């Protein structure tokens, strides 16, 4: 699942949203890191709809123009949940390894002489 698809599905968890509503919500959710262009948004929406992960909720006219609201389907919620779990598992693994690695560094530092890192811990 791409980053854009992940954030779009996340944006639809609480309520159905129209195109601009999704763009704004994704920007907020990602702290401004993901800014969807309209072409990108509709490319991803087409794909998610074709895969049955989202569906059309309703249509409204706004100042003479069309607004379509999209909603998360049950399959979409399952796919998002699985992806979130996969990402969380990856994050847990990374955090665990970082935690295991840091004390070793911390212990090694006092005995390491500057410029000779290869001899760290060597007592000869």
């Amino acid at each position, binding site marked *: 699942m*791409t980053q854009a698809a992940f954030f779009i599905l996340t944006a639809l968890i609480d309520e159905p949203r*129209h*195109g*601009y509503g999704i*763009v*704004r919500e994704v920007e907020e959710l990602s702290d401004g890191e993901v800014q969807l*262009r*309209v*072409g*990108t*948004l*509709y*490319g991803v929406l*087409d*794909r998610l709809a*074709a895969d049955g992960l989202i569906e059309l909720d309703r249509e409204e006219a*706004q100042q003479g*123009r*069309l*607004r*379509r609201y999209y909603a998360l389907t049950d399959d979409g919620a399952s796919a998002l949940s699985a992806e979130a779990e996969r990402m969380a598992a990856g994050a847990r693994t990374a955090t665990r390894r970082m935690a295991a690695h840091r004390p070793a560094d911390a212990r090694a530092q006092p005995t390491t002489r500057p410029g000779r890192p290869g001899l760290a811990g060597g007592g000869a």
Partner: protein
Amino acid sequence: MTTLLEQRYRTVLRMLPAYYRAEREEEMVETYLDDMDEADQDLARPAWGEVASIVALSVRTRLGSAGAPPRYAAIGSAVRLFALLSVALLAADALTQRALPAAWLTGAAPKDRADFMRTFTGNGVLMGVAQTLLWVLPLAWPVAYAALLRDRRRAAFTLALLGAAPSLSYLVGRPMGQGLGVAPSALTVVTAATAWLTVAAVGCGYHSDAPPARLPFAPAGPALLGTCVLMGGSMVVWPQGADSVWGSGTVVVAAGCAWWVARIRASRRGAGTPEPALPLALAVLGTVVLAQRCALMGLLTSAQAPYSTIVGGEIQAAALAALVATLTVSGTRGLLARTKATAAGAAPHA
């Protein structure tokens, strides 16, 4: 009231196919203009990033896959098949063009071996590195072929870029020891165009919605091996007539003939209009090889090449032209049938 920005954005959206605009244009305009101050809209223009996203969407919708209208699904299939077949042909060419000299070198006289090695070592370190890269980089094509069939699309695209890179160097002329001002030959231009057309087809055709690459009729490994054997065999069997396009031309003629035999058998069994993707892909592949063949014929004629080489090249050019014409007619008929189905609002292509 329509603002200038809206007009400009609608102009950008005209890049999208009509069926897609009919479905999405109003919604996209609403999404784009929402929250924009109307007073500023006459001064603004769509951002380049926004235009780029529409270009990408335009390519994706025009090279459709399952679910797209029949015409766009057929065009998408044809582009993807061309990309795959062209990568396979370039891969086989890279392997064959290196295997045959290697086989020759093992039995060559020491003086001939030294002459061959001087290509890499005789013009200084920089030229040696450049010549080595030119020799090695085309081997990215076989790896790109494997990556494409394993559905590693980004890797396949990157490898195709690497495989095509030497064609730019030949175009500039430096690695051949020529100055920058020397005009490239027609063959060099056509060869480079073929490589980059293939890169573009891989990049555009295998977008994230496209189905995985599959060769028609044959498993991937034996198909590449068979292409190498046919290509190398045609050069070994008739060395006095073979030139740098001969092997590729032989393979395309054989593939076109095989398609026609299969088509005749299918029509005897009462099959209807053939799928247009394969004949169209073979027709485009045949056209680029025919263009290379014609460019090389010009060089051979001006260099007063042996009569057998000229005649062999002309016969191959005629066979390629005939195949391209018949494949184009067959493919276009199939595409027109799907265009009518699209216009009539037929069910999406499954």
